[in-house]
């Protein structure tokens, strides 16, 4: 290579880095402030101001974990117990009003500090008041100065009406999104998916239990079939856009006494304050649902839990509070309230690269920022790493383990043991202390036995991005346990597939023994049929199936199921990415993936046996020859 050729390599790199940086600035400014590149500088200055403000505020002391010792006692009310009957409601309101002023300006205690009954993961809707992640850039409007938002507001829908009076397209846009419809028709398989219909292997089904489960529906009051999906007043703008960290949601309907303990310790919402605080969603907004899927902190995903609200660099290099501090929406870009990134239909291999600045609004892939040759190609290492991109998802190497933030994720749930009572009452056992010191329930009468894990290497599989589901309508063969709640295809010879990391969830859950289908259970409700109250599977299933017009044979059993959760968050810094030997080894992480040649595994066993045998025979032959020579020499000497 001549001198010119030698020079061209680093020059290319600098240029590339420069382009990447410019692209990033442009991208970030568009993603964050919907304006031009020049605003990025302004937004940086603004963020600095925010940081200064944040460090001056007393709230900062509870930045990561509220200190149980210093937490002041605040208002408590047993929402369900006290709210029985008009007198109860009046009492609750009085209590709530009386404590409103205090509640608004105090730190919440950590859930563990709640007097008497500490059960962190059952409080999942009542997160401790969070210090919001930083705002995503300057708004062109100060909402606190809008007359329309001064109140008074009696309820959420009152606030929504005020929002939609100005944002007159937002309601129409939002009502098309999956956050509202909870419906998704898979474009490839035609399957009807979405939380409205699916059965999972955690609490199993939201259908018929909306009073509880639809706390995570971005709307007000979905408790049964009567909910009006056409009424924009029912949209909950605040759950995503509140930037005070004080907004919260309650179940939409009343549950049994068995669940009463789950809802306490929370003051009333200061509606004008939250309405005036609105901004683009921070991590704690999205996290208030997505971190708590499956019934508690980190339970469902393994790569999404409350530790990400204030992450450090080692936990997630993008969401690091002190670093890039990404909001979820930096990657999950949106247009008209439709957010990119779906685990029903993923882009398992993105060949589109970065696109032009500001384009590619419909993807949340790593490649859409990092391109499809993300490692510096200045040597064997970088070139070989870039050579992996077509076959190995970025996540596979860059997320070395799941549940790394001190919050455990659930890997096993056994419904068979649900319903045990002590003195006629349901109970819980806490036999697991997770990394951040909090106890997790390993048994609950209403749910059964749980197994948790932390800091665990994911499972790996070839994945083409298309998820197929075992739905309530799918008939399966009980002999082929575990039944995959979701499954996928993908193969080494499919150019659209790559090796992806997954969390596997294993559950033993009820099914219809006569019809060989999954079942809807009626879990939630202040009635005699709800499992979370009567602990009667047969009755809960019969009710759940009947009220949703599904056939039930009358006989139920338990069946093993598994579900697969693609891992894509908790991206470690580059220096913590997997080393080559983690996979390129005989008993490496990819030992279970066969049917293709992977260096380091000895993938041509027959050839290897023949080769080693030949070498051994040669050595043996030589040894024999030496012996023969010695023997012959001795005989010659003798004669």
């Amino acid at each position, binding site marked *: 290579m001549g001198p010119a050729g030698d020079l061209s390599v680093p020059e290319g790199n600098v240029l590339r880095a420069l382009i990447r940086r410019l692209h990033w600035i442009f991208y970030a400014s568009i993603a964050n402030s919907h304006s031009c590149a020049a605003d990025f500088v302004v937004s940086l200055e603004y963020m600095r101001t925010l940081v200064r403000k944040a460090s001056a505020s007393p709230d900062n002391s509870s930045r990561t974990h509220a200190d149980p010792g210093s937490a002041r006692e605040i208002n408590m009310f047993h929402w369900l117990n006290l709210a029985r009957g008009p007198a109860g409601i009046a009492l609750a309101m009085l209590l709530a009003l009386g404590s409103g002023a205090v509640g608004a300006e105090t730190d919440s205690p950590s859930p563990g500090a709640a007097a008497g009954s500490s059960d962190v993961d059952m409080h999942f809707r009542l997160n401790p008041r969070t210090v919001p992640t930083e705002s995503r850039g300057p708004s062109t409007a100060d909402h606190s100065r809008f007359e329309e938002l001064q109140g008074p507001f009696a309820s959420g829908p009152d606030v929504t009406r005020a929002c939609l009076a100005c944002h007159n397209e937002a309601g129409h846009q939002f009502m098309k999104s999956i956050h509202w419809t909870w419906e998704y028709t898979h474009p490839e398989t035609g399957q009807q998916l979405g939380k409205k219909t699916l059965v999972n292997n955690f609490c199993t089904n939201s259908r018929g239990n909306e009073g509880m489960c639809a706390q995570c529906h971005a709307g007000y009051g979905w408790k049964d079939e009567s909910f009006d999906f056409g009424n924009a007043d029912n949209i909950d703008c605040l759950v995503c856009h509140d930037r005070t960290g004080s907004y919260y949601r309650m179940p939409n309907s009343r549950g049994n006494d068995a669940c009463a303990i789950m809802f306490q310790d929370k003051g009333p919402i200061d509606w004008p304050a939250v309405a005036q605080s609105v901004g683009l969603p921070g991590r704690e907004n999205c996290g208030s649902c997505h971190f708590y899927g499956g019934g508690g902190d980190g339970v469902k995903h393994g790569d999404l839990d409350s530790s990400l609200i204030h992450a450090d660099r080692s936990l997630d290099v993008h969401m690091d509070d002190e670093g890039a501090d990404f909001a979820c929406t930096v990657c999950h870009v949106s247009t008209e309230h439709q957010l990119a990134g779906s685990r029903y239909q993923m882009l398992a291999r993105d060949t589109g690269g970065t696109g032009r600045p500001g384009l590619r609004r419909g993807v949340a892939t790593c490649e859409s920022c990092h391109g499809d040759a993300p490692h510096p190609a200045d040597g*064997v*290492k970088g*070139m*070989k790493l*870039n*050579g992996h991109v*077509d076959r190995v998802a970025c996540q596979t190497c860059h997320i070395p383990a799941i549940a790394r933030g001190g919050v455990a994720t659930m890997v096993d749930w056994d419904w068979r043991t649900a319903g045990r009572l002590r003195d006629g009452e349901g109970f819980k056992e806490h036999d697991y202390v997770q990394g951040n010191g909090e106890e997790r329930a390993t048994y609950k009468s209403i749910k059964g036995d749980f197994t948790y894990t932390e800091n665990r290497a994911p499972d790996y599989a070839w994945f083409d991005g298309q998820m197929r589901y075992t739905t309530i309508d799918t008939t399966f063969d009980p002999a082929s346990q575990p039944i995959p709640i979701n499954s996928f295809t993908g193969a*080494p*010879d499919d*150019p659209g597939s790559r090796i992806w990391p997954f969390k596997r969830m294993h559950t033993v859950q009820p099914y219809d023994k006569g019809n060989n289908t999954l079942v809807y259970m009626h879990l939630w409700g202040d009635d005699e049929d709800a499992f979370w109250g009567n602990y009667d599977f047969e009755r809960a299933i019969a009710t759940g199936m009947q009220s949703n017009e599904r056939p039930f044979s009358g006989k139920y059993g338990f069946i093993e199921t598994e579900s697969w959760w693609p891992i894509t968050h908790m991206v470690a810094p580059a220096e913590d990415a997997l*080393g*080559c*030997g983690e996979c*390129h*080894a*005989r008993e490496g992480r990819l030992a279970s993936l066969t049917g*293709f*040649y992977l*260096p*380091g*595994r*000895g*993938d*041509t066993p027959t*050839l*290897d046996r*023949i*080769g*080693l045998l*030949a*070498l051994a025979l*040669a*050595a043996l032959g*030589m040894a024999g*020859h*030496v012996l*023969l*020579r010695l023997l*012959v*020499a001795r005989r*010659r000497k003798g004669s």
Partner: protein
Amino acid sequence: MITRTVRIFSRFERFWHWSQVALILTLAYTGFAIHGLHGLIAFDTAVYVHTGAALGLVVLWLFAIFWHLTTGTWRHYLPTSKGLWRIARYYAWGNLRGEPHPYRKAWRRKHNPLQALAYLALKLFLFPLIWVTGIAYLTYDLWSATGGGNGALTLVAAVHTAAAFAIVLFVMLHVYLLTVGGHFLGHVAPMVTGFEEVELTPTEAAYLEESEGSAIRREGG
């Protein structure tokens, strides 16, 4: 014919031989680690060392080919059937009986016919095989999308590994045969010093003494 101590391996030839020894041993050790036969060295280190050593060997080879062609040394490897049978017979049982080696190194022919044939096969078949597959393996990322993907890689890797086994087998035999028909060190020494006793025609002896004074040791001196 006169027997004289003559430099039969030039400085470059010796350098070529010993650096090739080092590179081939390095390549075998790291290569079998990459394939997964042993885990005595980290995979990434093995890849970097293997790649570096392979590129080093390519460069060495380019020099060696040039050297062989320009010096005419390539003629030493021309196959001949003359005396082949006697050599084969010697290695089969003659050496057991303590017979002297039937081949006397000549100035123009430093390898016996069997040796020449073995080296020729190595250079014309095994080495090109491992080079072609090695370069295909190294550049896999450039052709994987259009060239049959992993199925082709499996084949490339299998042939590369098979060739590696064959070369290791060659090295074993090569070293072992140094012990046959004389002393091991006596056989190694010429590749270190360059000098060995060979039979010369009077003309050759006269030529060497006249024109290549440093290449021939004076009798008694």
